[in-house]
């Protein structure tokens, strides 16, 4: 499989950083096309920074970021994003929130008005996939946090992005809802060809969903360990209680503990 995201020797310093210290340093990472990659690391180590670099929302001071074979010099377009905070617009219905990316991205932008019905059908299909069938007419604030997060996943996927960036998307949810959403995410990934980078601090989440897991060091962040996850797909939630799963999580814990101790 070909490389889709290639981050080479990247060092990034925020323009507004008070101490001028880099957020990430000598960061190297490659993610293959259609791969599900997870990035775990202690809080403040630069995980969100990595996402911004990969989507062209920030540009590195040193090193290069290549996405889809091209060096990133502007926001990449076509990336879907979801955050811990669902950031739904409260004045739009859930359906209109999901259609928002289509009002931005070409060719949908110019097609949207004429082919509205087609896009609405697509959005409703996505809603059904995440377990929100028939809820599109509701306003986001009429939905629970978990439901809003499902809708936010639909918004991230409606324009069929090549790259999906998830920044701790399930971090604010209770355990049951979170595990439900893991399965939703697993099924979405199976149904759509898309490269996914998931940032999380939940090691079980990373182990259950990802094909490959990267562990980051404390700030300034770099990759200290890389681990293939070989559990066959489709995975069932049951595997999270199996012995190999537990030992994988334990191993990841070890890397993170080391990274924290080194800081």
């Amino acid at each position, binding site marked *: 499989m070909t490389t889709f995201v290639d981050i080479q020797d990247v060092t990034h310093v925020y323009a507004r950083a008070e101490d001028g210290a880099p957020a990430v340093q000598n960061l190297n990472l490659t993610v293959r096309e259609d791969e599900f990659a997870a990035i775990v690391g202690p809080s403040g180590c630069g995980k969100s920074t990595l996402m911004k670099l990969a989507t062209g*929302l920030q540009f590195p001071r040193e090193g290069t970021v290549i996405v889809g074979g091209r060096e990133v010099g502007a*926001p990449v377009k076509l990336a879907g*994003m979801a955050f811990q905070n669902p950031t739904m617009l409260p*004045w739009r219905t859930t359906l209109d929130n999901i259609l928002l990316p289509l009002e931005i991205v070409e060719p949908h932008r110019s097609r949207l008005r004429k082919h509205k019905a087609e896009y609405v059908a697509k959005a409703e299909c996505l809603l059904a996939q995440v377990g929100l069938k028939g809820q599109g007419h509701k306003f986001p604030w009429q939905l629970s946090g978990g439901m809003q997060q499902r809708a936010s996943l639909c918004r991230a996927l409606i324009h069929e992005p090549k790259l999906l960036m998830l920044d701790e998307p399930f971090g604010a949810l209770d355990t049951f809802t979170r595990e439900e959403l893991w399965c939703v995410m697993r099924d979405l990934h199976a149904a759509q060809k898309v490269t996914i980078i998931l940032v999380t601090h939940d090691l079980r989440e990373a182990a259950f969903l990802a094909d490959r897991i990267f562990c980051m060091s404390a700030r300034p962040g770099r990759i200290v360990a890389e681990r293939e996850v070989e559990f066959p797909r489709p995975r069932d939630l049951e595997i999270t209680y199996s012995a190999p799963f537990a030992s994988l999580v334990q191993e990841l814990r070890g890397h993170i503990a080391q990274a924290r101790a080194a800081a």
Partner: protein
Amino acid sequence: MTTKRHLHLAPWIFTLGFFLAWEIICRVLKVSTFVLPAPSTIAQAIWEYRNQLAFHAMHTLWMTLAGFGIAVAFGLLLGMALGASRLINAGTYPLLVGFNSIPKVAVVPILVFWFGVGWVPPVMTAFLISFFPIVVNVATGIATVEPEMEDVLRALGASKRDIVFKVGVPRAMPYFFGSLKVAITLAYVGSVIGEQNASNVGIGNLLTRASAAFEVPLVWAALVVLAVLGVVMYVITALIERSMTGWAQRSDMAAA
């Protein structure tokens, strides 16, 4: 349910109580009409001068609405520019704040030099005094778009313009309508100041003439008419606000 009824009645009861207390104080202490006329005396004056008051009030209303309308259009545009561009924001704020600090009474003579006595000075004064809160509120609403929302859109290739119009402006609407309630009352003050100094008609002009002639009950009658008009305009603005930004008023605090 009863609390809701009480809440509906409360403004009427408090207002009536206020005027009743005023009336009683005037009668018991035998306050001279020259110092403070009783509400009954003012009511009488309102009835007596009803034609004159209605004519001048209509004029003031027009001046206010015209100035307010210009302030809304100008305030929205400038607020959008300020909210969208950090450069414009940083550059123009000192000018804006400085201008807003000038008492508008002091500007009326200049308006008279420029436009002469007539309808222009009251309209201009109403505009100048009321646009500032609109600008500040619209700019704040736009400038405080959640960074994550901005990231989502920018990663899709959205331009600054897309973000301002799709997220910033709708998001600023509750701030905008909130500022209108302040602006409409300010516009009233502005048009009356303008009329007092540079017009031959309007409640402001009537006030000037009545106080020069020591017609105290008429002065008070004009003030009461102004206050009532102000409340009516405020209520209309608040109703428009409620119907336009229902999504922003979903907390129990707003409903109570």
